[in-house]
């Protein structure tokens, strides 16, 4: 078994008296999709923020390829977030520059890491728009003219353009229409397979977790109550809370 790309242990974080994370451990291997599910207040979004270096835990460490993420300094973290990592926000407006064209949004990370040939940058942007099923003719349009689903797909293209190894996703389908969600999930599924991405996805949508994830962690009140193979956890839940969660999902 090769070493995991991202490994975290003992993560604890309290907001005053409220325990957001209590002794959480998680790791992500190469090419693996891991889902973190739980209801509001479970700590899953806090966990994502701590793992991606946006928040510092009170205790515990997060290591990327062996390096302590919180000890490496903001400059190194920002570089990481621009190259080997990606982050897809729940609201695409948090992950896009709304006053910059679609092509500029996708090309920005390339330019930030030194790309200086306009023609090549534009060609790369066009190819990524095609991959996320956005019509190439919209390359010069502003994201505010896009639908929510299109904005989200644009955010994904913008994130993947530098071929990150690990992508953090925070409720990527939240707020989208159901049919639009299906398309987006399918896109995430096929791109992660095609590119061999590792994905850490936080979601309250169990069906999305089943579709996308190899492994799943169930969180409740800051703790991981159950984890394992996705189909095993969802079809044969052991913990009472997991059983409750799974039985509450409405089947279409």
């Amino acid at each position, binding site marked *: 078994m090769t070493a995991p790309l991202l490994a975290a242990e003992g993560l604890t974080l309290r907001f005053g008296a409220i325990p957001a994370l209590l002794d959480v451990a998680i790791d992500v*291997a190469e090419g*693996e999709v891991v889902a973190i599910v739980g209801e509001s207040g479970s700590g899953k979004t806090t966990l994502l923020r701590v793992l991606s270096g946006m928040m510092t835990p009170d205790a515990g460490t997060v290591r990327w390829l062996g390096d302590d993420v919180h000890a490496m300094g903001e400059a190194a973290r920002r570089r990481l977030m621009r190259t080997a990592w990606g982050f897809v926000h729940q609201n695409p407006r948090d992950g896009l520059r709304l006053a910059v064209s679609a092509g500029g949004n996708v090309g920005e990370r390339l330019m930030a890491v030194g790309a200086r040939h306009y023609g090549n940058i534009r060609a790369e942007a066009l190819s990524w728009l095609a991959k996320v099923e956005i019509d190439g003719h919209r390359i010069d349009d502003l994201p505010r003219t896009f639908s929510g689903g299109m904005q989200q797909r644009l955010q994904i293209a913008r994130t993947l353009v530098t071929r990150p190894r690990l992508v953090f996703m925070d409720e990527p389908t939240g707020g989208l229409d159901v049919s639009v969600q299906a398309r987006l*999930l399918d896109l995430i599924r096929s791109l992660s397979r095609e590119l061999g991405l590792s994905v850490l996805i936080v979601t309250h949508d169990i069906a999305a977790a089943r579709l996308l994830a*190899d492994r799943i962690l169930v969180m409740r009140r800051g703790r991981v109550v159950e984890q394992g*193979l996705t189909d095993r956890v969802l079809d*044969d839940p052991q913990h009472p809370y997991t059983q409750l969660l799974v*039985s509450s999902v409405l089947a279409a």
Partner: protein
Amino acid sequence: MTPALRTEGLAKAFTLHLQGGTHIPVLSGIDLAVRPGECVALWGPSGAGKSTLMRCLYGNYGAGSGRIILRHRGRDIDLAAADPRDVIEARRETLGYVSQFLRVIPRVATRDIVAEPMITRGVPREEALARATALLRRLNLPDRLHGLPPATFSGGEQQRVNLARGFAPGYPVLLLDEPTASLDAANRAGVIALINEAKAQGAAIVGIFHDAEVREAVADRLFDVLPVQDAA
């Protein structure tokens, strides 16, 4: 000859926390062994735990106790205790499963659903799609359906998609849960042929065959699965 798949003292019980902690034992002391080229049919009354045993073998249900030993990459691994990533690797390369129900992925065409396990194993995309098409045709699924997602297919059509997906990669170990349940006589014959070909190529097969004709045509022996007496 070393079994391709065997269990030692496999037991499985369910605890339903939402029903006041009701404890339901389903399997107890299961010692099963299947050799390459052999087909073992699970045999027992309805509700006895045959499907549960299948799902345990696949890792879909967690084993309560005991071991599930799979011959994978020339070594024995205990699926009951294995790391999830190892189970995924075993499922990708060695262990195939044809369930009774097709879990439908929205928007993905039938042909791609069937090709996907092969592509994951490293088969080039064009070749995987070609094999998928050939197998679907063999199972009498009309060409016009190959490009559609199977959500709107009939039960029998969905089952044939499932079968194609399970047989296409050529797994060394195959688990078949009621593979012919929704099929007519002609299609049943097609499935019997597929199973026998797989056996001839050395696959070890564990199956639940409700249909006597199919069972007799493919099974080398029966394995009894009897209801566990509830001692609680």
